[in-house]
């Protein structure tokens, strides 16, 4: 009886993916404990985030993909409307206009778009199954650029980058021609100098600092310099949990959120870093397998996009902390402190699980 209920409860949970995710989250809690100066308050707050996110994941895993396909368009339209509202009467906080007051609560519509954009594009291509012409890709690109433009304007570089990536992956997986891809890259490369010459000095300066933070060591570059010192001094095996001097001595800014990887790398060293990459790789491989086995165009594209977006998260964040990518506000997935990114990530994994487990049911039934 009880085992039946349990079986029912976990019917739509992919056990391999679930194990990897839970293990990564656990690692994250340990790092957070160290990074926050051993603050149990932070840990319990993060546990609340994780609980909420897991519940969201469970719900998503239990919704059949066909239902998801049906809500793709309304969700996207709602998201765009909310983005317009943010642009018109959003609340400004820390110099960016991202939040919308809805009487009782505040929401950040750009977060909705993280999942709504790949869903919308996957739906779009699944409706045009037989023929994917250039014009289809053009329409899809417009569907992608509308929300990205709004979010860029807020400004929220990190989120718009991730949404662009998620949309690009759908386009690519739907069969965007290689010729077009290479041609596009060449054209953009050729247009760069022209674009550059049109910019104001101060705009150029901001881009230069974005690319090479060491030019502004008192501002943007400070993070990167301190993060590389923390990482480098971790060495091969790391200084050990709770022993990272740079992290503990207040040298590292934003060490529980965007720069938490520096704490991890200082305390667990290169070996720890590689193991984390392996953990991430396992999640990505599982996602790719799910995508390759998916039965419909919609689920295939969506699964592929969710998986590769997760990869983008991880790569951009670690790359930025290591000083090989510009500093944009992207958290380390499953590890950085914060509820919003945890919920959107696990929502994505819930959809992956739904795609995988409902396929089995359809096949067997």
């Amino acid at each position, binding site marked *: 009886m009880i085992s039946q209920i349990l079986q029912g409860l976990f019917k739509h949970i992919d056990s391999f993916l679930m194990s990897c995710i839970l293990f990564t989250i656990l690692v994250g809690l340990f790092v957070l404990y160290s990074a926050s100066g051993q603050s149990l308050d932070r840990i319990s707050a993060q546990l609340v985030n994780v609980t909420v996110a897991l519940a969201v994941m469970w719900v998503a895993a239990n919704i059949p993909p066909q239902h998801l396909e049906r809500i793709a368009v309304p969700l996207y339209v709602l998201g765009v409307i909310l983005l317009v509202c943010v642009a018109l009467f959003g609340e400004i906080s*820390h*110099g960016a206009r991202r939040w919308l007051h809805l009487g009782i609560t505040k929401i950040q519509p750009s977060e909705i778009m993280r999942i709504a954009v790949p869903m919308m594009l996957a739906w779009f291509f699944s409706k045009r199954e*037989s023929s994917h012409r250039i014009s289809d890709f053009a329409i899809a690109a417009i569907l992608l650029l509308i929300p990205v433009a709004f979010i860029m304007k807020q400004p929220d570089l990190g989120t718009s980058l991730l949404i662009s990536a998620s949309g690009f*992956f759908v386009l*690519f*997986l739907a*069969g965007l021609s290689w010729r077009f891809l290479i041609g596009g890259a060449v054209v953009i490369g050729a247009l760069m100098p022209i674009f550059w010459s049109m910019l104001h000095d101060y705009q150029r300066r*901001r881009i230069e600092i974005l690319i090479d933070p060491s030019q*502004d*060591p*008192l*501002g*943007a570059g*400070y993070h990167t*310099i301190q993060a*590389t*010192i*923390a*990482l*480098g*001094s*971790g*060495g*091969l095996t790391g200084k050990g949990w709770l022993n990272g*001097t*740079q992290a503990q001595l207040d*040298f590292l800014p934003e060490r529980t959120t965007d720069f938490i990887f520096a704490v991890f*790398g200082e305390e667990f*060293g*290169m070996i720890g*870093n*590689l193991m984390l*990459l392996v953990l*991430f*790789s396992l999640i*990505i*491989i599982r996602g*790719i397998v799910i*995508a*390759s086995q998916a039965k419909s165009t919609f689920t*295939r594209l969506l699964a*592929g996009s969710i998986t*590769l977006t997760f*990869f983008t998260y991880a*790569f951009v964040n*670690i*790359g930025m902390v*290591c000083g*090989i990518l510009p500093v944009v506000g992207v958290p380390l997935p499953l590890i950085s402190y914060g509820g919003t990114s945890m919920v959107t990530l696990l929502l994505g994994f819930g959809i992956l699980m739904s795609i995988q487990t409902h396929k089995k049911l359809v096949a067997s039934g």
Partner: protein
Amino acid sequence: MRSSTELKNYQNEQHDFKLRLAALGLLVLIAFSILAARFYFLQVKRYDYYQTLAENNRISIVPITPNRGLISDRNGVVLAHNFFVYTLEITPSKVENLNDTIAEIAKLVEVSSFDLKRFNKLRTQSHNFESIPLRTHLNDVEAAKFAVNRFRFPGVELKSRLFRHYPLGSLGAHMVGYIGRINDKDIENLKAAEVLSNYKGSDHIGKSGLEQSYEKELHGTTGFQQVEIDADGKAVRILSSKAPISGNSLILSTDIKLQEIAEKAFGERRGALVAIKPSTGEILAFVSMPTFDPNLFVDGIDVENWRLLNDSLDKPLINRPLRGIYPPGSTFKPFAALAGLEAGKRQPPFSISDAGYFTLPNSSHRYRDWKPGGHGNVDIRRAITISCDTFFYGLAFELGIDRLTSFVRHFGFGEKSGIDINGEVSGLLPTPEWKKRRYKQPWYMGETVIVGIGQGYTLVTPMQLAQATAILANKGIAMRPHLVSGISNTKTGAINTIQGIASDKINLDEKNLEIVKLGMIDVTLPGGTAASVGANAGYSIAAKTGTAQVIGIKQNEKYDADAIDERHRDHALFVTYAPADDPKIALAVIVENGGHGGSAAGPIARKVMDYYLLGKLPPVEPEPEVNQKNTGATPKPSVTNVPEEELHD
């Protein structure tokens, strides 16, 4: 056949999809390999380097604050500069017992109660880990004394810092402004403007006046040194450095000597004066009386001085030219006259027969002239000269409020002048729409009538009044008023001259301008309301006097009866430009509770013009006394045969 093609397509598509997934998988592999390589580089290859930085030494990025730009007047007289002084600073978080430490320090160098009060005030405003000055301006002996005993005081540092100093003290303080310590709100603003990193190491920021509005120019670019420091925080080695770039210097259009003459002419009286060069918009003098010493604010003002300034009935901290609002009174009449003439009304030889009052059609209410019994036969030129209320009541009525206000708005009434200091208010030019919005009441015809003589809801700032006069003098061409005429780049030495910018051009009939001008010239000739101002001038002066009821700067209720009496006297206003035929200077003067414009405000304007036009210094004489009898509702003429204008009730 068709279905088999579709199947084939499907298979192709499946195959292509898997191929693409594989390509992305390869991308993941490459990307993660790059990260792994980077880990190897940072954590294995350069481990020793970073290990050294992290463990034995630490990298510290030390900002080098730039020198703040100077401010000087048009002749190069320095109004704000910097000099090095020794300061003794304490970082509270590094000190075990703050009171004992301060007591010990006091045995070595003098620490006054003033210093202590300031220190305690700053402590409440800053974080524990910030370094807060206990003593400033230590002399060499004191500095040496402390240096010898330094080892006894961990957390206390002797610093040589650049200090801002205003050598002329209170002269032009409202114009130059002052800098003060950066507070949380400043940090928010700097963050929003994305320049916070440029303020690392800076303790001060412009708080008012030009110091505030030209902060971007004055501050300069912060340099830095990347240094290795040992465990004690001492610099071991400089890794890299970038020199700071000093801030740019401001050159004002103001002549500080003229400013001084104007301020002295006010004596003990409160008020404001703004003088403008009409052809360029350059501001020649910018007076707000009483004034204050900006040096008090640089290190953080102490409580006593702050109370003294802030609670004073005279409100010395208010920037009167920009924030003092007054009814324009009769100084509004030349503009109303021009509005009438341009609308084709009241063209000579039109005249009225003034019986001493005006009535609206079908009404018996009398709008009285200031002169009981009236002025007799009055045309528009004479109406300006003798400030005939009855004439302008009728004119405003006939023009209507909309035509009148939309015309004078071009002269800047009801609008910010756009001067290069922050905090300007826009005054008020009332319209029926405004009244409906503000009071939810309809506009009454009687309100139009009194707008004609500058009463009713109309409010102006001295800056606006001066600018309107300058526009009139410049025949309708509005030049944007500015205090800074040049910005000198400290790096290259190049001076960027700020040109006059015409912000508006009103199309005016030369003939009408001439009529108004002649009316205004007559004001300073025998028979006009300010005949004494024009006496023996040697150049022709176009002017208009005005008197306004007291409602401007908010009155405090606490003062004693005598004071109330004095402070309820009318404000004296005076606008003028000269020489009338080729205006070189236009100005507006307001003397609060000064009584009549011609006698109280006029002489101040005359001294300023005498110096500016003729280089004549005012004779050394005891400060002119305000005529004590000239109060309330029954003013007595202060100069015989000069009609005294007065407010209607």
